[in-house]
């Protein structure tokens, strides 16, 4: 049985339809890259899967581990093993990173029938994962993402993912705004988490990230639909001929030309 099955998914924000019939099946252990120009609906898909209420699902079904995902609250999805690495991680002044992560981990552990971690075990786990992400431990006592650099925010997302150990990780443009060193660290963190029981959906505009996180499948999204699917070589093809090679207009490039 597949871990995630998306069938004819439609979603709107306000009056605008963004997803116009997405079909996608993800099996355990697979890494799927979703590529596409700006405005194609990549981030919307990621957010809809995580349960963002801003988007209204108007049609289709999403089955996760045999359950109706769309009927679940965001927190229940997380407790069942879905993790979204945000494109724009949210700054939350007044809530310490440590408190936040401990609360999250213990809720998720409770849901899995595991004991809550005490402060000592939690700190040990966190230290180990921070090392993996080459993160400064001082960031733990700081408020969530507050005053973090762009790179620190993205690392913090993957660090949270490493601590929470999801079954389905959705990475929303985790590469955007990262220099090459930070990109390597982040990709290294993601690769360390690849496992036969863990699936990933990697949303990205550029092929660059996929040199480091090599996907099993690549899908190209355009105007709310998957227009082409293939293996990892599809990403390389896109890198050479661009989205226009597929007859897709890339909004960003259009803007640059003007």
């Amino acid at each position, binding site marked *: 049985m597949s871990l995630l099955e998306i069938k004819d998914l439609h979603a709107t924000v306000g009056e605008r339809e963004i997803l116009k019939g997405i079909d996608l099946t993800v099996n355990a252990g697979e890494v799927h890259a979703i590529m596409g120009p700006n405005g194609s609906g990549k981030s919307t898909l990621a957010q809809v899967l*995580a*349960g*963002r*209420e*801003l988007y209204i699902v108007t049609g289709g079904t999403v089955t996760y581990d045999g359950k109706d995902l769309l009927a679940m*609250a*965001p*927190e229940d*999805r*997380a*407790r069942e093993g879905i*993790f*979204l690495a*945000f494109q724009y*991680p*949210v700054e*939350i*002044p*007044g*809530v310490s990173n440590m408190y*936040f*992560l401990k*609360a*999250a981990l213990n*809720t*998720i552990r409770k*849901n899995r029938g595991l004991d809550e971690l005490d402060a000592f075990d939690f700190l040990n786990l966190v230290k180990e994962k921070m090392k993996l992400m080459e993160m400064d431990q001082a960031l733990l006592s700081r*408020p*969530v993402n507050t005053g973090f650099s762009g790179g620190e925010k993205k690392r913090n997302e993957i660090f*949270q993912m490493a601590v*929470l150990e999801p079954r389905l990780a959705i990475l929303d443009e985790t590469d955007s705004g990262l220099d090459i060193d930070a990109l390597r660290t982040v990709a290294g963190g993601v690769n360390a988490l690849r496992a036969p029981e863990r699936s990933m959906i990697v949303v990205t505009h550029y092929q660059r990230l996929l040199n480091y996180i090599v996907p099993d499948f690549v899908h190209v999204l355009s105007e709310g639909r998957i227009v082409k699917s293939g293996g990892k070589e599809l990403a390389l093809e896109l890198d050479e001929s661009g989205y226009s090679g597929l007859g897709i207009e890339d909004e960003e490039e259009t803007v640059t030309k003007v």
Partner: protein
Amino acid sequence: MTAVAEQIGQWVNEFTRQSPSAPWVEQLREAAFQRFVDLGFPTTHNEEWRFTSVAPVARATFRAAAADRLLHFAESVQELELKDIEAYLAHYAGFGQNPFVALNTAFLGQVTAFQVPRGVVVEQPIEITCEVPDDAEPVAVHPRTLILVGANAQCTIVETFKGQGRYLTNAVTEILVGEGAVVDHYKIQQESVSAFHFATMQAQVGRSANFSSHSISLGGALARNDAGVVLSEGAEATLNGLYIVNGTQHIDNHTVIDHAKPHGTSHELYKGILDGKAGAVFNGRIIVRKDAQKTDSKQTNKNLVLSDEAVINTKPELQILADDVRCTHGATIGQLDAESLFYLRSRGIGKEAARSLLTYAFAQDIVDRIKVQSLKDSLEGILFEKFHEHAH
């Protein structure tokens, strides 16, 4: 009899029943009571009371009672008697305009008065706790406090107000901060939810002195704080406030920062959390006198409104008569941030727990400014309980 006369009439009986005191005190009482009779209880036609109706207080009957005060202070702090304070008492908190200050002064009895001698640094906070026990008959207490801090001295003052049942607390605190002195004042208002609480705090801040006020308002059915500071040359004042209202509570904070002399600095941050059908008022006046050049003043009022029915009225009032000054002010009224809520929930934290966490976080920077560790810990505990009651 008119309604107003009827309201005042009850207070006349209580006023005449007072035990005698020193002639100067009796004169002061007389003058203050006369002023109270002239002013009467304010109505919402009075601009200063526009959003706060004191009708429930005016209509009620209270028996005057002595305030029950628990004091803790270090040996280096001198407790003053009535005879020592004639030159200071009622010199800072005037009763000309505020009927509640007039009423407090009219009922002057036991005054809690301290002096911190010049140059003395007192580590241990001066703690003044006013607790009103439950009584069959509603009582009115008029706690009065005077603190004289000598030049270059340092001290911390913690005033706590609590009680049970229905009563009126009408407090006035005057603080004289000597030249170069450093004073940290905390007012923790934890009255019962059926109580009425009125309090005026007036500080006279000397040359190059530093005064901070932290006002935490949690209790009371109806509460009004008037916090005022007058700054001398080069003085610095910080006014922090946190008010948390729920149900049908109403809390009004009026502050006046008077830059009387040049080179003064003031920072003001008041934050409010409103839920249920509660109401709150923030009115922050900043006066920069003609002489007060090079004044630097910043005022911020932020409100978090958790329900559709809560009402906040916020108003800055700048009166700037000098021309070379820097004054900024800003007010915000908002709800919990939807993106932050989603972020927390996407990590498995339940909706109610996420709301509680963000509400708590909103108050965090005011709590962080509290320098008395025991006070900070107890307040964190109170807030944690308040906002986490629905979380589990």
